[in-house]
């Protein structure tokens, strides 16, 4: 756990980078500091490991006063990952990862074991261990940086735009892996980004700062999106606030409707009835086994024809219980039917999600 108590940072030229901040980062959670440039988010982060010293106030790390410890000792217990990574060019990947263990005097075997373990954890191949940083790609270097920060399994990690220096595809993958890792290790993490979408994706809680270092709001992503406290936060969250909220709500949290379902061997007449009762001009075709076949348009069915003698089209997109409502909305928009179909892992039909359903959730 990390706490800030009335912490202020004032620079010699008078600028206030952090203004009377009081905040608690619960243990095992990821808290994201986000805001425009000049809002003090990085300065706040760097006060935790005393790369920047606060002008006033108290900071505690795991219950201890950070200002009472010698900085090197404090820092060896905190993992630090920055955008430019800062790998030591003169050391191999393995030696880079083993930096803090070496500082703490671990023996060779222990270091080797831990290094191998970490490389596996972050997804680096074994032979990379003997390479030098300049021989690695950007994404690989980032992973080494993370492995290095995790070396002594510090309870606390500080991350400053750690995924900023790579392209969007690699970044998305790194973010995914990070979340997967965090689910396992549950570290206390302070994370800085200027990208609100990254903040929403990564954070258990988000702290939004404005220029001048004043904290505007500190909430979970959902609460932040549904109840921004002022205009600044609203604007920072962006116009597509509603959509962003949808991304946070799972398909599993809403109840799907049954929908206009028919079997493949039903006649067109039956399809017409079912469709009418639901108010649609199409039907969902589900086999007796429960598996989804697709959908069929009424206009292409004649009364006596079996449904499977006409054209059954597959749904462009399907969602399952693991998807978000945003994905559902996307599926809706992509389909002629205007709804999203939900299926299970095995392709078993679970219902449809309509626009009304989704609108209700946001309100």
């Amino acid at each position, binding site marked *: 756990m990390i706490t800030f108590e009335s912490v202020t940072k004032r620079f010699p030229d008078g600028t206030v980078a952090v203004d009377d901040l009081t905040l608690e980062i619960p243990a095992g959670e990821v808290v994201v500091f986000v805001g425009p440039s000049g809002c003090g988010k990085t300065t706040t982060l760097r006060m935790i490991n005393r790369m920047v010293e606060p002008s006033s106030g108290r900071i505690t790390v795991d219950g201890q006063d950070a200002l009472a410890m010698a900085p*090197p000792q404090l820092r060896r217990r905190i993992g630090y990952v*920055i955008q430019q990574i*800062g790998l*030591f060019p*003169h050391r191999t990947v393995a030696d880079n990862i083993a930096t*803090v263990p070496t500082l703490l005097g671990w023996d060779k075997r222990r270091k080797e074991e831990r290094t191998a373990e970490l490389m596996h954890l972050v997804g680096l191949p074994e032979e990379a261990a003997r390479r030098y940083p300049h021989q690695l790609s950007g994404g690989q270097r980032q992973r080494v940086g993370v492995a290095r920060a995790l070396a002594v399994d510090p309870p606390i990690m500080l991350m400053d735009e750690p995924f900023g220096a790579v392209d969007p595809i690699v970044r998305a993958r790194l973010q995914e892996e990070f979340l997967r890792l965090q689910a396992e290790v549950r570290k206390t993490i302070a994370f800085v980004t200027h990208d609100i979408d990254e903040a929403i994706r990564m954070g258990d809680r988000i702290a939004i700062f404005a220029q001048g270092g004043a904290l505007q709001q500190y909430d979970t992503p959902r609460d932040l999106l549904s109840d921004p406290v002022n205009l600044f936060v609203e604007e920072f969250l962006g116009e597509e606030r509603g959509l962003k909220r949808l991304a946070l709500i799972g398909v599993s949290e809403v109840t799907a409707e049954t929908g206009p379902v028919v079997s493949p061997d039903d006649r067109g007449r039956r399809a017409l009835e079912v469709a009418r009762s639901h108010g649609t001009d199409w039907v969902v075709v589900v086999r007796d086994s429960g598996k989804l076949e697709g959908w069929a348009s009424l206009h292409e069915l004649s009364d006596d024809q079996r449904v499977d003698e006409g054209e059954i089209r597959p749904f462009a997109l399907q969602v399952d219980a693991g998807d978000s409502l945003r994905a559902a909305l996307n599926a809706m928009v992509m389909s002629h039917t205007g709804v999203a179909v939900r299926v299970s892992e095995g392709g078993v039909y679970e219902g449809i999600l309509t626009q009304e359903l989704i609108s209700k959730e946001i309100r």
Partner: protein
Amino acid sequence: MSALYQAAAVAQTGEALIRWDWVMRHDERIRALFLDHVELTAIPVLLGLAIAFPLSLSAVRWPRLYAPLLAGTGLLFTIPSLALFVLLLPFTGLSRTTAIIPLTLYTLLVLTRNIVEGFRGVSDDVSEAAEAMGYTRPRRLVNVELPLALPVIIAGVRIATVTTVGLVTVTAVIGQGGLGRLFLEGLRFRDTTPLLVGVAGCIVLAVLADLALLAAERHMTPWTRRARS
């Protein structure tokens, strides 16, 4: 023009340029002078490093010291070596010290400059990462920044060494000189042989020293080799 004819004349009588029998007769002496020259080169460079390091590190720590430091060492460098050796005579006499002190002072400019630039060249991100990992300042300097500054520092040592090899010859005037003594001998007897031997010896020493330092640098900085990947 007559001078050129004279030179041509001397060159034509081939044997007048280098008398190999002289070389063979004096080979022991030549070897001794060579080693003397090595010593007179190595000591000033090593002393220079010992002095330049603390000065340079101060300039890295307090940047405002850099300009005056460069100006001071630069001014020393400006003084012609012969003059500096002579000016020291009243204090230290015709001894090795009179040679070594100015030779050392002359190395200070390039060593200071290269040590400072070497450390300044270390990427800020790397220094910051090292600090954030929990390195204490001295350990960071030695384990992280120094290795990375090494290429530039050694480049400076190379320049200092080659320059010193040439300057050592001037100390022949005050009784030292290494291979430079051969120059005075050649002058006295108007004999090109010792001169050419001396010049050749200096060039050989300079080149060998330069290559040796280059090899040392390559050895100490394996990460700069871009061979594999």
